[in-house]
Structures are given as structure tokens and as C-alpha cells.
């Protein structure tokens, strides 16, 4: 063993990447691991997207065309789980891996081996989750929220593997978050105060805190399911004195912070991109920090707005309604600040900026429909309709996913050393932007008119809008193959990027060459004037 340590000691900091495929398996480098996360995320995005396209194809016309209802249920379950846990979350963790050390002047993540462990658990977890499709009894069929007793008394045998897949994802998230928090708190370049950190770092610090707080609760609730299924306990069975509603309370205590876990890093990305292309400092930096913290705090005390229709005391409904509406205030602060940053800026509209502006507009639409859903009496009408589907897809797709794409275009020149093709990038943006709105906007209308979610068939009056929606889905879906092409093309070559890349960019990551060397800031930077944009 000591020989290995000696070896480690000598080539510490001096080695480049190892050769061959094993580089990616054994790596402890934050950039390699960030790349792995991003590719896993993209693969899962295509897989979850393929499920979504089958769903939309089935819904193209009323009646049952393509899949059996039982399989349809499995598809919506896996689509949700894979997009949430496989596409959006790993993408943000990948961005954090790539960017946080470079933004705070750290040599790597604080615990590099654990970083590799956090990543490599995930492919196994998703392989196990996806393999449930081929198991006897089929894949989990109860929706990504896996409400008991659908998931306990009535779930297929593969539910057990689903539970353990969730455990693995949770372990990965908790270790990843501990790593990010420790990196931010302990590895900032000397002299960098918390209030000098780029907003992306701030949002990830708070997101990581949320993850450590709620992923164990998710682990707890799936463990209770496991016990109910296999050991005859009565957590979610009223016959034994338990309560199925208890499941929903615990699940949403995790689930609501979870939706902010998927949006706070997006806020950080947008807060980096808009100042660059408006060529102004971010308006209201400290209010952005406090707004992020407020949203995180509020996320813990609003969970039952997901369950207004399960029958809770009136006082409870009123409380959860008003508390939920409070979230609009810090969120409004953020939107105001982004707009104020653009105000009188000398703006240009490169691809990342287009995605960022689309984020601000479309995320706000999703936020406003969220406010409508927060009104308890109105929610009795909207609950479990396509209006809810439209709402959370507006915050997650043109919200989180657009911000991830914006981030990829924005930092890809720094990662690869090559500029992407601006014309292709803009084409990808407009295809996505048009596709996503055709896809999800009509779902508001069918939802308000009463079309329930999670059904393979629907009443005839919803046919037109569903057809439009499906056309949009295929346009958006296939545009992402184009995105893959653009990214691969950029990796293989293109106009060389300068170290600054963007004229208006600020931050330590722009002070190092493009592509970023394998090891950066092995000694911390002394000059922090560039530190915050």
C-alpha cells in the first residue's frame, strides 16, 4: 500500500489525464467527473425524452393506439423519475463539479475520491431502475410520486428494485452535496468572502444544503414503503392505524425542496449569463443571495400545497396556501433583478443569452401558473389535470433544462477550447423555444377544461390541443439530437476560444486558458479582482 501512496505523493498535481477508458473510471479530477455527470445527464435526458415521445404519440389522438394502459403507466413513472433524478439533477451536479472549483480558485473538489464514488453509483442506480421494464410484472406504474397504497399494496414486484435505486441516488446526492458544501466553505481562495462568491456558487451552496436535508427524508419514506411491502408494517395502511396520507406528507416534505433543488442552480446560471451579455454588473447581488436563501427556507414549510384535495383541516389549507404565495416575493425579486440587469445594458444575443432570456420569460409563466395552483379553492379544480402538467413542465423544461443548455453554450468554449457554431446554436435555440411552447402551452387549456393527467385516453373535446402538443413534443425532442450534434462538433474542433471567451464575462474561470488545463489553481489565485461578475 505504501508504494501506492509514494507514487500518489510524487505525481500529485503534476500528472495529466490517464490514457484510455480507465481514465474516466478511476478519475479523481473534478473536470473529468463534471464531464461524466453531464454525459450521463444527457443520455438520461434522451432516454426520458424517448419515453415522453411514446407518451405523446399515444396521446396524439383519442383512443388507444400504440401502447397498453398498463405500459403507459410505466412510461409516465420512468419518464418522471429519469428526468428528475437522471437528467436535471446530475446536470447541475456536473456543472457544479466543473465550475465551483474554478470559480472559487480551488485546486479540485474537497474530497476527490468520494466525488468519483458519488458519480459512479449513478449508472448502476439507473441501470437497475431501467431494468425494471424487463422484469416480471413490469416497471413501477404509480407515477414518479409513488403514492401509497398504489406503490405498496398494488405495486409490481419490481417496486423493491425501484426503492433500492432511489436509495442509491440518495446516497450519491448526499455525498455529492457534502463535497460541494465542504469545497465552498473550506477551499475558497484566501481572501474570498462568502459575499464575493459568484451567484452560481451561492445557489449551489444552498442547493447542497437542501439536498442533505431532504434526501434522507426520501430515503426514510421509501424505507417505510419497503417495510410495508415486505414486513407487514402499517405506516401507510389505515387498517393498522397508519395512514396513506402520511406517505404524501413525508414524500412532499422531500418533494417540495426537491423542486427548488432543480431550479436554484438554474438561477445561478442565469445570474452569470445575463450580466455578461448585458455588459453590466448583476443588479442587486446581495438581494439575490438573500432571495435564494429565503426560497430555500420557505421550501420546507409549504409541502402540503401538493395535497389540498386529500382532506386536511381548513386552517392547514389556509396556512399552506398563504405560505406558498409568500414564495412569489423572493422569486419576484430575482426576476426583477434579472430584468434590471438588462435595463440599459449594451445587449447582444448570443445563444446562451437567448436561452437565459427565454428562461426568465418562460420560467415566470410557470411561476405564475404555480401561484394559481397555490390558491386552495381553485386547486380543487386544477388538481391532477394537465394544468399541473403544464405548470411544472414550464418551470422544469424552459426553466431548468434551458438554463442547463444556456450553461453548456456559455462554458463549452472554456471546457473544450473551441467556440460552438453560433448559427447552429441559435437554430437549436429557436427550434427548442418554438417546440417547447407548442408542446406545453396548449396543456394549460386542456387542463383548465378538465383533462386529467396520467391517462392514455381522453375525451374527444381535448383532441385538437393534444395533437398540437404532440407535434411540439416531436419538434422539441428531435431538436435535442441537433444539440448533441452541435456539442460533438464543438468538441472536435472549431474557432479557438480566448481565455476570456466572452467580452463581458467576469469570474475566476475566465482568467485561466481555454480549454481549462487538467489542473487549475493548484496554488490559489492571489488576484481576486476578477472574482465576482
Amino acid at each position, binding site marked *: *500500500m*505504501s508504494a*501506492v501512496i509514494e*507514487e*500518489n*505523493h510524487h505525481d*500529485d498535481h503534476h500528472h495529466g489525464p490517464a490514457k484510455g477508458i480507465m481514465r474516466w*473510471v*478511476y478519475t*479523481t*479530477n473534478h473536470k473529468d467527473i463534471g464531464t461524466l455527470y453531464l454525459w450521463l445527464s444527457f443520455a438520461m435526458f434522451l432516454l426520458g425524452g424517448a419515453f415522453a415521445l411514446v407518451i405523446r404519440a399515444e396521446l396524439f389522438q383519442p383512443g388507444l393506439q400504440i401502447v397498453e394502459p398498463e405500459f403507459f403507466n410505466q412510461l409516465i413513472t420512468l419518464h418522471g423519475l429519469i428526468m428528475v433524478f437522471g437528467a436535471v439533477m446530475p446536470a447541475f451536479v456536473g456543472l457544479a463539479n466543473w465550475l465551483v472549483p474554478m470559480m472559487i480558485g480551488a485546486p*479540485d473538489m*474537497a*474530497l476527490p*475520491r468520494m466525488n468519483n*464514488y458519488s458519480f459512479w*453509483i449513478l449508472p*448502476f442506480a439507473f441501470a437497475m431502475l431501467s431494468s425494471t421494464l424487463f422484469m416480471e410484472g413490469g416497471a413501477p406504474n404509480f407515477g414518479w410520486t409513488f403514492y401509497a397504497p398504489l406503490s405498496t399494496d398494488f405495486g409490481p414486484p419490481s417496486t*423493491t428494485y425501484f426503492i*433500492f435505486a432511489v436509495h*442509491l441516488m440518495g446516497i450519491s446526492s448526499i455525498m455529492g452535496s*457534502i*463535497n460541494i*458544501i*465542504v469545497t465552498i*466553505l473550506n*477551499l475558497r*481562495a*484566501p*481572501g474570498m468572502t462568502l459575499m464575493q462568491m459568484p451567484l452560481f456558487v451561492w445557489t449551489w451552496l444552498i442547493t447542497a444544503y437542501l439536498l*442533505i*436535508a431532504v*434526501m434522507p427524508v426520501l*430515503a*426514510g*419514506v421509501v424505507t*417505510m414503503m*419497503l417495510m410495508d*411491502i*415486505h414486513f407487514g*408494517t*402499517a*405506516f401507510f395502511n*389505515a*387498517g*393498522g*392505524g*397508519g*395512514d396513506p396520507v*402520511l406517505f404524501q*406528507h*413525508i414524500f412532499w*416534505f422531500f418533494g417540495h425542496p426537491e423542486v427548488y433543488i432543480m431550479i436554484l442552480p438554474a438561477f445561478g446560471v442565469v445570474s452569470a449569463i445575463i450580466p455578461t451579455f448585458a455588459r453590466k454588473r448583476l443588479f442587486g447581488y446581495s438581494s439575490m443571495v438573500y432571495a435564494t436563501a429565503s426560497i430555500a427556507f420557505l421550501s420546507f414549510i409549504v409541502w402540503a400545497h401538493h395535497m389540498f384535495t386529500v*382532506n*386536511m*383541516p*381548513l386552517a392547514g*389549507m389556509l396556512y399552506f396556501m398563504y405560505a406558498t404565495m409568500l414564495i412569489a416575493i423572493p422569486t419576484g425579486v430575482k426576476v426583477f433583478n434579472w430584468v434590471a440587469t438588462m435595463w440599459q445594458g449594451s445587449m447582444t444575443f448570443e445563444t446562451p443569452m437567448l436561452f437565459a432570456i427565454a428562461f426568465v420569460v418562460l420560467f415566470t409563466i410557470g411561476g405564475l401558473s404555480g401561484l394559481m395552483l397555490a390558491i386552495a379553492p381553485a386547486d380543487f379544480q386544477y388538481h391532477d389535470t394537465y394544468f399541473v402538467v403544464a405548470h411544472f413542465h414550464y418551470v422544469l423544461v424552459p426553466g431548468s433544462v434551458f438554463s442547463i443548455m444556456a450553461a453548456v453554450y456559455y462554458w463549452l468554449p472554456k471546457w473544450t477550447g473551441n467556440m460552438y457554431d453560433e448559427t447552429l446554436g441559435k437554430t437549436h435555440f429557436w427550434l427548442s423555444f418554438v417546440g417547447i411552447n407548442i408542446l406545453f402551452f396548449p396543456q394549460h387549456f386542456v387542463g383548465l377544461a378538465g383533462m386529467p393527467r396520467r391517462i392514455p385516453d381522453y375525451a374527444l373535446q381535448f383532441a385538437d390541443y393534444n395533437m398540437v402538443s404532440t407535434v411540439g413534443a416531436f419538434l422539441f425532442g428531435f431538436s435535442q439530437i441537433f444539440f448533441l450534434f452541435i456539442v460533438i462538433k464543438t468538441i472536435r474542433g472549431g474557432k479557438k476560444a480566448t481565455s476570456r471567451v466572452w467580452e463581458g464575462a467576469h469570474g475566476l474561470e475566465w482568467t485561466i486558458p481555454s480549454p481549462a488545463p487538467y489542473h487549475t489553481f493548484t*496554488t*490559489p489565485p492571489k488576484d481576486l479582482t476578477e472574482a465576482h461578475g
Partner: protein
Amino acid sequence: MSEATNEAYETYYVPSDSKLPIMASIGIFLTVFGIGNVLNDMTAGAEHSIGGWILMVGGLLMGTTMFIWFSTVIKENHAKMYSQQMNRSFVWGMGWFIFSEVMFFAAFFGALFYVRVFGIDWIAGLGNRGPADVVYFENFVPAWPLLNTPNPELFPGADKPMGWFGLPLVNTILLVSSSVTLTIAHHGIKEGNRKKLITWLGITVALAVAFLVCQVLEYQEAYSHLGLTLNAGIYGTTFFLLTGFHGAHVTLGTFMLAVMLGRAIKGHFSDDDCFGFEAAAWYWHFVDVVWIILFFVVYVFGS
């Protein structure tokens, strides 16, 4: 910024490529896949399951990898490859890990709170409920501990609750004492008194093992004399899951302390380099605090 103040930042150790994480990933995957196999075969009533073998291979791989991983960290530390800053990373990391454990227990305590304060009343149609007023179990009388369940055919209910006097009280005394003896052992390190460290840490491990033995006896008592089982409705459910997960954490904590005892005997730890010991001690105190809450909530005010 002078060179001296920067020194801690100049030497952050980034380990080179490592085979350990991928081994641990395969290990943990095989472990949970094996457990899943065993459980599904058990519930389906299969005669034998290959899951046990998968679990064994996974567990061995996981255990071996963790052993090598921790040994590597200890050896790197002894080789003075870690700066003060690096050590702070471990300290923060352990702190946040314990926070995640707190939240895990919070889910189970939260479930108990919900059931006792709202759930059982609502099932019986009592209390301040929402507008939908359906009563599914007409003859059900809510009480805690819940011995008569709404559906006794499926969930027979316990005959008697587990009182706090007797084994649970003994266990409380054992665990609280063990926290005290552990602190004395810590003082041993700080004073450079290895004999004191080994003696008191040994006593702590003995108290921990005694706790686990008592818990096994308590479970036997519950199953054979009180009719208190996992299947006894929500009282048995919360009783066994809360005490059971606590017991699992005590087992892990005992293992950690035993490793620290072994390391102490080998001559590890000095007053300025003993975070391995301190991390295990933090964990132990955390487990102790959970027990004290448990003792009051589950036993004293729960039976």
C-alpha cells in the same frame, strides 16, 4: 496576503486516480441488488434465493473496499500528506453527514408524531378534519399505544405495550454512561495518556455491546410475551422501526469505536491529530441523543 498565512492553502492534496470508488460502487450495487432479490423471493414465498449470494459478494466487496479506503486515508495522514485545511474538509464532511442522519431520523419521528397527533383520530372520524367526512372504521377507538387496530384481522395488535422501566431504562443508563466514558477516553488523548484512552474506550465499547445485547433481549420479550411485533399495527411499526434503526446506528457506532480502540492500541492518535477518533465520538454522541429522544417519545410517553 503574506506567504505564511497562505501556506495552508498551498498544499491541498488531490489524490491521483483511484480504483477504490468504482469497487465501492460495484459493491454497494451488488449489496442492494442482492437484498432486493432476497426480499422479493421471500415475499413471493420462493424456497431459495440467489439474492443471498449476490448480497454476500457485494457486502464482501464493499467491506474490503471500505477497509482499504480508510486504511489509505490513515496512511496518507501518517505520511503528513494532509494540511490543516485538508483536515478541516474531513471535519466539515463528518458534520454534514451527521446532519443527514438527523434528517433520516426526523422522517421516522415525524411519522410517529403525525400518527399520534392526527392520524389515529382522523381514521376514527374524530378531531378537526377537512371537509370530506367519511368514516371507514365505525367501531375503531383511537388510543396510544394503539393495541386495538382498525382492522384486527390484518394487524392483530399488541397485547401489551413495552414499558420504559426495566430493559429500556437499563439501556438508557448504559448509553448515557458510554458517552461519559467516551469523553474520559478523549481526555486521555488530549493529555497524552494512552493507558487512560485505551481503558476508557474499552469500557465504552463494552457498554455499547451491552446495550445491543439488552436490545436483543427486549425484542425477544416483545415478540414472545407482549405480542408486540412488526405486524401489530402502527404501534409495533413505529416501535420497531425507530428502535431498530437506532439499534442499526448503534451497531455501526460500536464498530467505529472498536476500530478506534484497535487504532489506539496500535498507537495512533495524538492530541493534535485524532479526528478519526473524534468523528466516531461525534457519531456516538449523536446516537446517544437520538436514544434519549426515543426513550421519552417511544417509551415514557409512548406506553
